[in-house]
């Protein structure tokens, strides 16, 4: 462990523009490249929406209703996710919680469970004719509906359960990277643990909380699977109706555009919150905090962590396992599915790796570009996350099949779609981590004539390494479970694991679907487990 150096809190200041024409050209090319990736689908969406001319089947009244439901669903789901994530992250990183390493690994698993699978397992459990109602009815005698997961509150419940790891991941990584000395000083000055958390820890975590919360919020905003299964009418389900029942692409584009505008407003709000005030730690070396002794609160805390993990991990996994049937059948299905596993791992792995590299470069150059261009660029990238997968898929077919047909015919188009949808996870994460690094560090290196590339490689990248691994896992996980765009864009014969879960579910082959879902979850969670193990052994 390294001893912390002298420490101050200073408001961060924008850095001087990158010097050297090579660096400037590099930054410019990056800007153009990202623009070419993200802008065409957005523009074609806008063009298609304009063709709607009149509102068609979409009335102002229904728009307002949809917006109200969608926004309250996303807001409440994010609030619920925060309530689940923040205490857990703090307990796991900063206290002597029992089984904290295990908890830390498990807390990310819900991300590997696609929310449509989560919704299906809760329907099997808490639906009108689900197991709980059946058990209670036989137990008490009177057949009655005790629980009903369908509807708005079920949507909030399920979405929060499967999005809280976004917040947990970024916040726990940030907790690890922030210097504990500040908190220790506050504690030594007589602050209570709660006071330290509220007045010292929380403000330092603000960028990460906002970034994670935003990811959860945008996920809830653009998710189709769980609201549609739980019968909540939101923008994505209305878009699906226009596209697949009425074949009205203009109306669907119009609805998507409204969704995108809502996203832009949300992003604007987040930017304002983020830039109000920020703190950096001056040293580059963060040492691990001495864990806080929970004392008699140790087991109640473990109970709390257990409840969160139980609802979000063990319940859905348990339901899936119960559906798989015999071990022999499980293995038989697994044997048939080798290719799908390989397909999934390849496209998701490639997308995640590219996203980390691009995210690091973008976040780094953003420190040197004028704030307005930076806001424009990161805003554009974030919007990609808000376009519903089905709509993005259709516009990519049109664009890529026409202009770059040699990409469209291959699995490469899936990588493009994943980058458009999930690049923001990487940019947000890396950006939040870089925000915690004092610009003086970089300036000092630069004054010693280090090139920007060298600064990035030798100073910044190593400092944010935990975050780089975290965002790789984030993008990988998101790409692994992406369904809506994949369903449209995959070349014939190139199915991925979520596509197989979908096909088997639609065909009511639930044992097969359950096996595929478990495989999907296992292969999604595996890289995360490897990264966590390596980190424990201080190998990365």
């Amino acid at each position: 462990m390294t001893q912390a150096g002298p420490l101050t809190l200073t408001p961060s200041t924008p850095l001087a523009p990158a010097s050297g024409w090579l660096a400037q050209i590099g930054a410019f090319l990056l800007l153009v490249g990202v623009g070419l990736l993200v802008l065409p689908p957005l523009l074609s969406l806008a063009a298609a929406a304009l063709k709607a001319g009149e509102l068609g089947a979409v009335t102002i009244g229904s728009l307002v209703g949809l917006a109200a439901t969608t926004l309250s669903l996303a807001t409440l789901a994010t609030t619920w996710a925060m309530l689940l994530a923040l205490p857990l992250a703090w307990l796991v990183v900063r206290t002597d919680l029992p089984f904290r390493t295990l908890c830390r690994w498990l807390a990310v698993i819900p991300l590997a469970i696609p929310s449509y699978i989560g919704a299906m397992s809760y329907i099997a459990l808490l639906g009108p004719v689900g197991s709980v109602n059946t058990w209670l009815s036989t137990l008490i005698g009177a057949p009655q509906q005790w629980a009903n997961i369908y509807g708005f509150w079920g949507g909030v419940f399920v979405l929060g359960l499967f999005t809280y790891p976004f917040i947990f991941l970024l916040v726990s990584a940030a907790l690890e990277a922030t210097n504990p000395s500040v908190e220790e000083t506050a504690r030594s000055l007589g602050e209570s643990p709660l006071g330290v958390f509220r007045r010292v820890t929380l403000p330092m975590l603000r960028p990460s909380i906002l970034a994670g919360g935003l990811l959860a919020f945008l996920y809830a905003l653009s998710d189709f699977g769980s609201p549609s299964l739980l019968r909540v009418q939101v923008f994505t389900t209305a878009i699906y109706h226009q596209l697949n029942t009425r074949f009205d692409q203009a109306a669907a584009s119009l609805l998507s555009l409204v969704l995108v505008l809502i996203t832009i407003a949300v992003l604007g709000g987040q930017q304002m919150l983020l830039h109000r005030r920020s703190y950096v730690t001056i040293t580059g070396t963060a040492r691990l905090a001495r864990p806080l002794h929970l004392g008699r609160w140790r087991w109640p805390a473990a109970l709390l962590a257990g409840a969160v993990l139980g609802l979000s991990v063990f319940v859905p996994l348990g339901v899936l396992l119960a559906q798989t049937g015999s071990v022999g059948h499980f293995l038989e299905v697994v044997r048939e599915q080798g290719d799908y596993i390989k397909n999934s791992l390849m496209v998701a792995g490639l997308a995640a790796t590219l996203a980390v590299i691009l995210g690091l470069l973008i976040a780094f150059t953003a420190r040197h570009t004028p704030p307005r261009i930076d806001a424009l660029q990161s805003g554009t990238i974030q919007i990609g996350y808000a376009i519903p997968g089905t709509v993005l898929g259709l516009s990519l077919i049109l664009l890529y099949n026409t202009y770059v047909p040699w990409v469209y015919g291959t699995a490469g188009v899936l990588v493009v779609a994943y980058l458009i949808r999930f690049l923001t996870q990487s940019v947000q994460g890396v950006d939040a981590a870089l925000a915690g690094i004092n610009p003086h560090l970089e300036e000092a290196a630069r004054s010693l004539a280090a090139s920007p590339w060298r600064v990035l490689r030798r100073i910044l990248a190593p400092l944010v390494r935990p975050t780089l691994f975290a965002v790789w896992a984030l993008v990988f996980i998101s790409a692994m479970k992406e369904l809506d765009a994949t369903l449209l864009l995959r070349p014939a014969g190139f199915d991925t694991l979520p596509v197989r879960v979908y096909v088997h579910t639609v065909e009511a082959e639930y044992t097969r679907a359950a096996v595929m879902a478990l495989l999907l979850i296992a292969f999604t969670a595996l890289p995360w487990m490897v990264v966590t193990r390596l980190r424990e052994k201080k190998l990365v």
Partner: protein
Amino acid sequence: MVVLAGVLFAVVAGLLPASPAASADRLVIYSGRKEKAIKPVVEAFTKQTGIQVDLKVGKTSGLANEIRMEKARPRGDLYISTESGIVEILTKEGLLEPYQSAATKAVPEDFRSAAGTWTGISGRARIILYNKNLVPEKEVPKSIFELTNPKWKGRLAIAGTRERTTLAWATALVAVKGETFARDYLKGLHANDLKILTDNTEVWQGVGRGEFAIGLTNSPNYYLARQNNLPVGVVYPDQDAGGFGTPVNPNVVAVIKGAANPEAARKLIDFLLSPEGQRVLVTQDYEISLIADVNSSEVPPLQSIKRTAVTAQRLADLEEETLKLLTSLNPNW
């Protein structure tokens, strides 16, 4: 960074040969039909002809949207749809290539395209599915028009128009009985708290598990529920002379215009309509054969069902009007 670059290289190297090349000798099928139902037929076809097939299974409507987007450079050769209204729309947009197989003549006229662009390959009837524990034998309704009776209040379910067969059913109602009658009837169903579900799977499972007493759905779902040991019964409604009959929706096949491999696509259509193709296709999912001399054992043959008299073209023309009617009554349709 170096590690990342290494990983990236390895993944790219692995990815390239894995993407199937768009070669002309492979037949690409876009199928809205279940994989379980279509794959055995395709395998039999490959065995017989040696033609390799790439199968892309999805929702009928999603694949239709794909065909529209790919218009400039079609990627699929053959489209299999679970409903005929959609292929009428695609025909109007000029996205399908006419093809009449020698066997097409054996298919009844209401199950093939007037323009020669599509052919029915198997059928599914609209049925009343009921839970045997909740509906005593003598109370089983024989007509869909009995369902507005208050005794069924809160006990009825149907899939929304996301299932194209539901839309076709409602459109047939408008086409044959007129809009005023259809509106009154549907209002009656809503007065009975008809529950609109996401898809037909939810309907047969809901009825089978007792969430609903009665569901309006398609004939194969009855057999599917039975396979899952659920206590269900089936009624082919309105079969009396002069009655409304019940719509039979065809699964259809069509060659995509501009297909890279039209010859193989046509061969597959011939195969689907051959006795062997029909036998494999129909028995997979308890469907009704549209060709007289191929019958599956448990399923009533086409001739024994009195079907609602309406053409696919008429259904396509009335579809938008019907949708407006439905959504004006309840946004959940």
